[in-house]
């Protein structure tokens, strides 16, 4: 409840506080009260019980006396009174809202620490020129679990996890295919499965170019061929 309301429309808040006062203790009364309130939904229940009773008219003298005691300003005339009154309250609420907002801002900002302790999921894989056209690079297989393949126009990073049961296939250069040693699934250089039990092609990882011109691979994002994601521009790097 804003104090504002009280000052603006004191007559509106006429109420019967006695009713509340009475209702302490006596069960019969309480019963009465609860059934009363049920029937009076809408109008009566909107009433704020503890609103003070304010008479319609206020002794002018009394009021000015109070005002004078506020501070140094001798605010006597009604319009000035109103304006200053508004500005203080507006300021108060503005500042309070802003402060509350800031407080929630602080809470939100608090949730984002300045450093992270996560192992790196993204890593740099050298410069595009380090990779020869038409070749599959197996250098990063051990460390990061990717093959980096450069075709004539693009570079892509293939996951080294077989889509069958998760073994790690090998790149057989002479046969130009990835072959899984576990159950014999075969994948072409593009990662598409063509033999063995593997149900789907190998996944590709997000690949992009970092600021320093190195290839940046993000393993958190995968692209599956069967979902048509290989056309996603993030799934390959144009050279």
């Amino acid at each position, binding site marked *: 409840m804003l104090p504002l309301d009280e000052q603006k429309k004191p007559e509106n808040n006429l109420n019967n506080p006695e009713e509340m006062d009475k209702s302490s203790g006596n069960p019969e009364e309480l019963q009465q009260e609860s059934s009363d309130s049920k029937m009076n939904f809408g109008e009566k229940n909107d009433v704020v019980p503890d609103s003070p009773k304010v008479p319609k008219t206020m002794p002018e003298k009394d009021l000015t006396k109070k005002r004078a005691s506020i501070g140094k300003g001798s605010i006597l005339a009604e319009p000035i009174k109103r304006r200053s009154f508004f500005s203080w309250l507006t300021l108060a609420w503005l*500042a309070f809202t802003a402060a509350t907002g800031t407080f929630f801002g602080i809470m939100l900002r608090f949730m984002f620490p300045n450093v992270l302790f996560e192992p790196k999921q993204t890593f740099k894989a050298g410069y595009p020129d380090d990779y020869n056209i038409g070749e599959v690079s197996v250098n990063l297989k051990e460390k990061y679990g990717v093959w980096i393949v450069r075709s004539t126009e693009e570079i892509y990073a293939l996951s080294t996890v077989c889509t069958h049961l998760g073994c790690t296939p090998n790149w057989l250069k002479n046969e130009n295919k990835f072959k899984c040693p576990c159950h014999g699934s075969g994948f072409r250089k593009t990662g598409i499965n063509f033999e063995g039990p593997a149900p789907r092609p190998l996944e590709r990882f997000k690949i992009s170019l970092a600021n320093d011109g190195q290839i940046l691979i993000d393993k958190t994002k995968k692209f599956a061929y069967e979902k048509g994601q290989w056309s996603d521009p993030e799934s390959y790097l144009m050279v």
Partner: protein
Amino acid sequence: MIEKKENIQERLYNISNLNIWFAISSVIFFAVLIWSFVDDYSRSWKDYQRDFRKLQIEKTNEEFEKATILFEGTAEYKDIQKRLSDFKELYNQKSEEITRAEEELLKKDAILYRVQQEFNFSKANYDALKYKYEEAVTHHLSEANELEEKLEKIHTGMLGDQLVLETAQDDYDEQSALVKQFSKEINETKEEKGKLTKQATLIERKLINLDPVHMDFSNRIGNVIRDLPFIDFLSPYYKVEQIVVNDITDNVNFTRVPKVDRCMTCHKGILDQEFESDTQPFKAHPRLDLYLSSTSPHPVEEFGCTSCHGGRGRGTDFISTVHMPSSPEQEKEWEEKYDWHQLHHWDIPMLPAQYIEASCFKCHSSETSIKNADKLNLGLNLMERTGCFGCHKIEKYKDRDKIGPNLGKLASKVTKDWAYNWISDPKSFRHNTWMPRFFNQPNNNDAESQKRSKQEIHSIVYYLFEHSTDFKMDSRPLEGDIQKGEILVSSLGCFGCHRIESDPSQGKTTIETLRRDHGPNLIGIGSKTTPDWVYTWLKDPQKYSASTKMPNLRLTDGEAADITAYLSRLTKEDFLEKKVSSLDETIVDNIVLDFLKKMNSDKDARIKRAKMNLGEKLDFNGKKLIRMYGCFGCHDIPGFENDKPIGTELTFEGSKLVEKLDFGFIEIPHSREAWFTQKLEEPRIFDQGKVKLPDEKLRMPNFEFTEIEIEAIVTALIGFVKAEIPEAKKPARNDRNLAIEEGEKLIRIYNCLGCHTIDGKGGAIRSTIATWLGDIAGSSSAEDAGLVQSFSPPILDTEGRKVQPEWLFDFLKHPSMIRPNIQVRMPSFMMISDEDWNKIIKYFQVKDGQTLVYEDSHQVSKFTSSFRAGERLQELGECNKCHFYGTTFPTQSAETWAPNLALVKERLRPEWVSAWLNDPQEFIKGTKMPAPSIPTAEEVKDPYVLEFVGEDVAALAGNRDVLINGLTDYLYTITGKTDISQEVRDYFNENGYNFLKDEEFEGTGDEWDDVDW
């Protein structure tokens, strides 16, 4: 209720008043919250990062300009530009044609796309059905037949689609190639241009991300926005950088947590050579080859920063990281600049710069010589020389022999008076002795203590002499020649371990100088002991003390007598004249009583004392005092065979909490290094101002270390930390490293590097060889490094590859002459066990990658052309000019004499001989051994040469390796007496050893000599 009625508004406060209060408080509330943001936002590391960025921009701009200048304006670049515009024009001319082709390509692309999709569909359907069929075959056979038919059908359809797809693909490829053809030249030229400007482009790209001036408008705005408060979590430019090292941990007592180092948040240039000469905090690490860089042995991702430097790695400002100043001046500077004070709530403050090498010890503790850690090595060496481990247990030096001489036969060596004076002030006899001073120290130099001290010394001396056993000395056959003795001392190699320097040298202590302090400085030896004792000692040191490190030089009686004569002349008269205070029985009594009272009541003690006579009292005191002062820590003393070291264990002294160090009333900074320094400077200082009984006082003697020495020892002490470093991060404990460690340890203990040189270290004796050469052959000889080398003990760099291990073992046990013309003599180290010799040999072997102990002896067939060619080459090379062939003397004078070639067969490894012959300089720079001239195929075409070299060589000419192997083969067939020392000695006895003076030197080309032994 009553109040309510009186106050018409039922109010206590004036509402507008409250409004104002509410407004004011809210504004303040808002303001403080904003303040909290500002406070959080303004971190000192951000300022550093900003400064660093400025520096970086400056540097990169410079670089960019440099890179641009490289190609701009060159003819090549202009040409490319011109060609490019030409091609573009050409391209534009054909634009209509191109557009048509491109449109066609688009159409084909559309078809391809559609066909691809169709194929994808049929493929997917086929795959799905295939599974269904497979599944049906196992589970519901009834449906299988139907499915099979269906599958067949779909398969056919799919194959059809595939065909269509392939055609479409071909179509598309064709068209695409066509389109590409148009821009082919442009692209090629662009590529060419790209190659030319690559460097500049890379720098420019860096610059675009770095320098707002080079950014486009939106990036410039983003550059500001990204670091604004509150949203600076989104994508900040300035951010905390950290390295997490999981297996190197910080000890937080209850557990160990992975190390997190944020140093690079401010030290941004630390990894970048570019910032080599900038100031802190941006300066690059001075040794990127050793530390931090990914190619170095200590990459930063694996070791972090604080694992070596100490400090609080998680801190992000100057103080919270616990930077430590390296000098009071720096401290003052920091106080002004950073408002520095030491953060005490972290047990491992950063190491002041001068002690940084201490950290090497964490992982390299088992090495004797830690590469690139000279100060630490010096400190460790000093600790070893001074025998700290005698009183303080140190894990690294456990089971070491005591460093002082055996006192079991003391009476035969020195007089009581001498011993008394020596103990009371050793340095007054020998300025650089390792024997420290126990008396007249700050905590016992008052008059009362002085008196007591004198009687204590008397007691100790009494005990030592009382328990000294008899030693039968050899009698000298003749009075030696002092002159001869002096030459012998300076030429035989005594100066590898000893000095004869009566004045303290002004130079700094280094590991090299320490090598010559291995044995005592021989000044005043004549005043210390008798000539007979010296003679006996020289003839066989082990006779007097079995555990001495002094080797046997296999001196003849004459030589020994000469040396004795010379050494006995070295006297220190003023020391002998020092007065010995008289024995005071009352004080002796007091001492006795003090000791007795430790274990007895006053009454009993007095009774016991009364039963003793003076001798017994002195003996009793002596024993107690030796035990109290820990003399037995360095000396073998009868009766103290099983005593334990008296000092605190130092194994983990570097980890000792500062709180556990007693600073007494001394006002020095409360840090480990300050305490250690103070302790070493003045070991008894912390007793200052304390009331203590004589036997409660601090007992550590004063070594009178120099400042440099103290700093080095403190470095080592700080390094003695308890650190749980994972094995993977330490140098591998493999056979090779272990063998090297063992070998280096022994080489250190026996001071091999006093004479020899290995890996550029050692050879301390050389300066004295130079002096000697100067004495006998004039100062020009002393300055000829090559000559000095050729008369010095050999360099052992490739020893493992060079010699046969069996021969080496034999040689080490019974050294014999190798280089006939040098005087320095390899002594016999009788005290080294076979086991240790094996370790030393293994050390040489693994160092050179040799693992075999037993090798096939080199089999030579004399009936091969290569052998005959080798024989001829040997003739042509006139090896006999310098080398002995058994007892056959070389044709040239003694000055160029070289080893006996009859030794080759049993001594050298053929592989090494061939390599050596191929290029001796590669093995030993400056060796006088010339490479044999091996004729090439070209040269042999000359008939004159052909005739000169002979058929056998000519046939193989051009085949250098075979010829050299032939020569090697020949060397292995040379027979004759291997030990020619007697012949050589006879020769020198006859002709004297002054050949150096007599002969003129020619160019080095002819002298066949080496640093061989």
